[in-house]
C-alpha cells in the first residue's frame, strides 16, 4: 500500500523558521553571539590580568597598550569589561533561571490546585509586588552583605511574581480542557498530568518571558552593583565598573572607566530584548507586547 | 419617463493586496438603483457583496484594498472619484449603512445616545437639547420602549434586537436617500429577524429610501426586495426581479440556492438539497466560470472561458454558458 510521506514540523522548528524572518532579531542574535564569545574567551582577546594592579599606569586614557585605558588602580579597562561581562552574564542567566523555576512551581501550584494554595500564592505575589523590585532588594542586599551568590539569590528570589502569574493563567486555561480531563479520568497522577500534559503548553508563552527575565536580571545586577550593594570589588562586573561614575571627578575627567561597561550593558540588554521580541512573534503572532 | 437612478455603479473592480497574493474580491460589478427601490445582493460569504458596497462607501481599508476601476454615480457625483471630504459629508447623511453585528459595530464606551447625537451634530448642525430630543424620537421610531431613559445606556445594556434597532436609528438619523444594509439580521434570532425586517420595510415606505440589502439568505430577500443580484466569487451570475428569480431562475448557482431553501409545502423529513463543494478560494480562481467545479452542467468550455452575460428576459440576465441546457431541463438540475 502506497503511503504519502507527511512530515510535520515540530513547534520549535516552526518557531525557528519564523524567528529567522525577524531581521532585527537575527542581527541582535549575532551581536549577542559576538559579546558572549568575547566574554567567554576573554583570555584570547586580552593579555592582561583583570585583577592585576599596576600602580605605574593608573588612570591612563585609551592608548595602544591599553585600548580602553586603565582604572584608578592601573587595571586594564578592556580586560575588566570582558571579564566583567562573564560575571554579569552568568548572574543574569542564573538569576533568571532561578526566578523562572520558582515562578513555574508556584504558578503551577496556584493554578492547578486552586483553593487555598492559589489564595496563599496569589497573596504572596501581591505582597512581593507591592515593593518595587529594586527597593526590597536594596534592603535585603544591605543585610545579607554583598556577594555574587547573594546577588543571584536576591534577584532570583524576588523576580518570580510575573512568571508565576503568567504560568498560573496558562494552567488555569489548560485545566478545564478536554485532554486534561481525559488524563485525569485515566487516573494519571497529578505530577504526570502537570509535567507531561500541561507544562509543554506553557513553554511557548514562557520562552519570551525567560529572555526578558535574563535582561532584567542583568540590569538588576548592574543596578545593585552600581549602588555598591551587588558584587563587591575587585571582581569586575559591568555594574560595579560603572560605580566609578558616581565619583564626579571620574565621571568628568576619566569617562573611559565607565563608558565601556555602560555600552556593553546597553547593547547586551537591547539585543536580548530584540531576540525576546523575535521569539514572542515566532511563538505567538497575536501577542505583540508583554510584561516589561 | 427616464428618471435618473439614485445610484449607478458601473464596472467596479476591487482587489486586496498586490503581486502574486492579490485577491480580486469584486470584478466588473454594475447595477442601477432607482429612488425608493430595494435591491438585494445575494451570495455566500466571500462572494464580494459586502466589499462592493464598502468600496462605494469608501470604507474598505486601503491598503491592502485597491479600487482598480469603475464608477459609482450618486446624485451626479462619482463616489469613487470625488475627494475624501465630499464623500465623508455624504456618508451618514445621504448614504447610511447598517452592519451585521450591532454589538461590535457600536462603540462600547459611548452611550447609544451619544453615538446618534454626534451624527446629528456633524451633518445637521444640531446641538444640545435639540439633538438629544431628535435622538429620542429616532429611538422611538425604531421601536425602542422608554427611549428617553435608554438613550443614556451603553450598547452592552441593550438586547441583541434592541442594539440592531439602535443601529438602524443611527442610520436613518439624517434622513438618508440610500440605506445600505449589510446582513443586518444574520446575527439575530429568527423571531427578531422578522421584526427587524418589518421595521426596515416600514421605514422604507415612510421615508422613501433606496435600499441595498446584502444577504446570503434568499428567504429574507423575498420579503423585502424588488430586484435581486446574485454574486459568486466576485462576479454577478444573475440579476432579475424577485418574481422572475424565484419563478424562473436561470443560473445553476441560483437554482442551487433556491433548492436549499426550506419550504412550507415540504413534507416533514424531506431532504433539503445543498450545493455540493465549497466556494473557490478567491486567490486562485479557475480561468473560466468560477462555479464550474461545483456545477452539474459544467463542460470543458465552462472551465476555460468566462461565461458571457445573456439576457433571458426583461431585466433578467445571467452569466452562463449552459443557459439552453437549463431551459431544456426546466430548471431541474441533477441534484434537485
Amino acid at each position, binding site marked *: 500500500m502506497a503511503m504519502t510521506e507527511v512530515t510535520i514540523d515540530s513547534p520549535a522548528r516552526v518557531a525557528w523558521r519564523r524567528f529567522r524572518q525577524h531581521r532585527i532579531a537575527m542581527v541582535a542574535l549575532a551581536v549577542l553571539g559576538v559579546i558572549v564569545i568575547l566574554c567567554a574567551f576573554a583570555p584570547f582577546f586580552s593579555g592582561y590580568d583583570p585583577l592585576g594592579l599596576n600602580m605605574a599606569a593608573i588612570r591612563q586614557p585609551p592608548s595602544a597598550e591599553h585600548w580602553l585605558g586603565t582604572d584608578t588602580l592601573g587595571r586594564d579597562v578592556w580586560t575588566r569589561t570582558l571579564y566583567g561581562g562573564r560575571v554579569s552574564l552568568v548572574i543574569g542567566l542564573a538569576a533568571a533561571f532561578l526566578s523562572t523555576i520558582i515562578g513555574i512551581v508556584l504558578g503551577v501550584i496556584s493554578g492547578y490546585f486552586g483553593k487555598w494554595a492559589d489564595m496563599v500564592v496569589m497573596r504572596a505575589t501581591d505582597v512581593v509586588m507591592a515593593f518595587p523590585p529594586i527597593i526590597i532588594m536594596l534592603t535585603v542586599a544591605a543585610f545579607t552583605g554583598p556577594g555574587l551568590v547573594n546577588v543571584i539569590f536576591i534577584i532570583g528570589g524576588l523576580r518570580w511574581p510575573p512568571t508565576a502569574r503568567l504560568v498560573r493563567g496558562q494552567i488555569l486555561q489548560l485545566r478545564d480542557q478536554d485532554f486534561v480531563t481525559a488524563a485525569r479520568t485515566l487516573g494519571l497522577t497529578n505530577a504526570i498530568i502537570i509535567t507531561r500534559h500541561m507544562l509543554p503548553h506553557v513553554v511557548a508563552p514562557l520562552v519570551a518571558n525567560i529572555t526578558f527575565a535574563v535582561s532584567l536580571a542583568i540590569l538588576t545586577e548592574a543596578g545593585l552593583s552600581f549602588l555598591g550593594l551587588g558584587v563587591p570589588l575587585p571582581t569586575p562586573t559591568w555594574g560595579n565598573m560603572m560605580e566609578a561614575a558616581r565619583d564626579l571627578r571620574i565621571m*568628568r575627567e576619566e569617562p573611559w572607566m565607565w563608558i565601556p561597561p555602560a555600552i556593553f550593558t*546597553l547593547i547586551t540588554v537591547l539585543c536580548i530584548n530584540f531576540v525576546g521580541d523575535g521569539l514572542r512573534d515566532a511563538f505567538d503572532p497575536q501577542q505583540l507586547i508583554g510584561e516589561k | 419617463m427616464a428618471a435618473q437612478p439614485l445610484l449607478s455603479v458601473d464596472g467596479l473592480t476591487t482587489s486586496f493586496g498586490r503581486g502574486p497574493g492579490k485577491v480580486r474580491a469584486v470584478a466588473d460589478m454594475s447595477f442601477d438603483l432607482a429612488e425608493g427601490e430595494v435591491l438585494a445582493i445575494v451570495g455566500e460569504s466571500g462572494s464580494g457583496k459586502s466589499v462592493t458596497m464598502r468600496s462605494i462607501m469608501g470604507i474598505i481599508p486601503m491598503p491592502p484594498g485597491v479600487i482598480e476601476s469603475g464608477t459609482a454615480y450618486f446624485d451626479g457625483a462619482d463616489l469613487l472619484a470625488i475627494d475624501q471630504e465630499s464623500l465623508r459629508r455624504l456618508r451618514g447623511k445621504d448614504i447610511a449603512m447598517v452592519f451585521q453585528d450591532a454589538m461590535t459595530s457600536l462603540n462600547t464606551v459611548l452611550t447609544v445616545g451619544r453615538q446618534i447625537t454626534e451624527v446629528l451634530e456633524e451633518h445637521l448642525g444640531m446641538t444640545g437639547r435639540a439633538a438629544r430630543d431628535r435622538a429620542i424620537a429616532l429611538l422611538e421610531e425604531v421601536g425602542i420602549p422608554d427611549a428617553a431613559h435608554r438613550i443614556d445606556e451603553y450598547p452592552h445594556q441593550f438586547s441583541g434586537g434592541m442594539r440592531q434597532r439602535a443601529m438602524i436609528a443611527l442610520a436613518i438619523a439624517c434622513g438618508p436617500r440610500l440605506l445600505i444594509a449589510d446582513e443586518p439580521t444574520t446575527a439575530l434570532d429568527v423571531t427578531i429577524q422578522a421584526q427587524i425586517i418589518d421595521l426596515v420595510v416600514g421605514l422604507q415606505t415612510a421615508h422613501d429610501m433606496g435600499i441595498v440589502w446584502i444577504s446570503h439568505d434568499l428567504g429574507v430577500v423575498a420579503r423585502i426586495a424588488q430586484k435581486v443580484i446574485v454574486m459568486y466569487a466576485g462576479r454577478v451570475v444573475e440579476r432579475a426581479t424577485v418574481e422572475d428569480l424565484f419563478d424562473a431562475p436561470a443560473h445553476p448557482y441560483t437554482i442551487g440556492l433556491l433548492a436549499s431553501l426550506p419550504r412550507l409545502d415540504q413534507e416533514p423529513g424531506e431532504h433539503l438539497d445543498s450545493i455540493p463543494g465549497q466556494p473557490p478560494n478567491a486567490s486562485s480562481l479557475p480561468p473560466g466560470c468560477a462555479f464550474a467545479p461545483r456545477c452539474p452542467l459544467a463542460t470543458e468550455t465552462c472551465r476555460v472561458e468566462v461565461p458571457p452575460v445573456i439576457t433571458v428576459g426583461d431585466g433578467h440576465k445571467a452569466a452562463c454558458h449552459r443557459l439552453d441546457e437549463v431551459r431544456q431541463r426546466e430548471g431541474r438540475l441533477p441534484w434537485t
Partner: protein
Amino acid sequence: MTRYIIRRLLLAIPVLFMVTVLVFALIELAPGDVVDFFANPEVMAGMSEADLEALRERLGLNDPAPVRYLHWLGGVLQGDFGYSLIRSEPVGELLLRRFGNSMMIMGIGLFVAVTFGISLGIYTALRQYSVADFTISFLSFVGISMPAFIAGIIALYVFSVQLGWFPAGGMRSPGVHTLGDLLHHLILPALVLSIIHMATFMRYTRFSMLDVLKQEYVVTATAKGMPRRIVVMRHAFRNGLIPVVTMIGYSIPELVVGAVFLETIFSFPGMGKLYFDSVISRDFPVIMAANLVIAVFVLAANLITDVAYAAIDPRIRLE
C-alpha cells in the same frame, strides 16, 4: 462604583498587613540590632557591656519579636514612625518632606512620559510601516532597554558635565529660592526618568491603537461620516486607552526604582536618595517607614488604576 472601591479597599487590608509583617521581618533578619550597630568604638566609646544591656532593655529590644512587631505597628498606626538613628529627626516628618521632593521628579517624569508616550503611540499607529513609525518604534525599543541609572549617568555626563546646560545635582542653588532655579534642577532627572516609561507607553498605545483601528465600530464611525479626527480620538482612542491606563498604573513601582537611582546620581534630596542612604547607614526606622510608605504608595496606585479602568470602560462599571 462606590461599592467597587470599598470592596477593593477591603481586599487591600490583608495585603497591607502582610506588607507590614514583611517590612518588620526583613529588619529582624538583619544581623545585629540597633545597639550593636551603635556599639562601635567611634560612636559609643566608653559604654560598658552593662550599659548596652540596659539600653537594650530600655528600647524594648529584649522583648520577643511579635511583641516588638505589635509595638512598632501600634506606633505606625498612630503616625509614629520613631526617630531616625542618624539624622535625629522624627522619621514621619523626614519622610514627608523627602516624599514631597520625590513627587516633583516622579510627577514631572510621569506627566512627560504619559503625554509624549501616548501621542507618539497614536502618531505611529496612524502611520504604520512609515519611516517615522519604524524610527520611533526602534528608538522606543532602545528606551525600554535603557535602565534609569545608565541613562542618568550618560545624561549627567553629556548635558551637565560636557554641555553645562543643567546643574550637576542638588535641588536648589545655594541661597536661591526661585521656581526657575528649582525647575532647572528638576528637569534633567525628571526627563531621564520619563524615558523608559515614555517608551513603554508609546509601545502599548501603538499596539492598542492598531488593534482598535481595525474594530468594526471604527468602521461604523467612518461610515457615519465622522471626520477622521473624531474617528481617531473619540471612537478609537477612548477604547485604545483602556489597556494603556493599566500600564500607567503598573509602571509606578518602576518609577520609584528610577527615582532611587536618579536621586542618588543627581544628589537630589528625595525619598529615593534617603532610602539609599538609610540602607547604606542601616538607619532601621527610616528603612522600615520608607518601605511601608512605598508599598502603600504602590498599592494606592494599583487601586487608582483599577478604579480608572472601571471609570473608562462602562462594561465594568455595573459589575
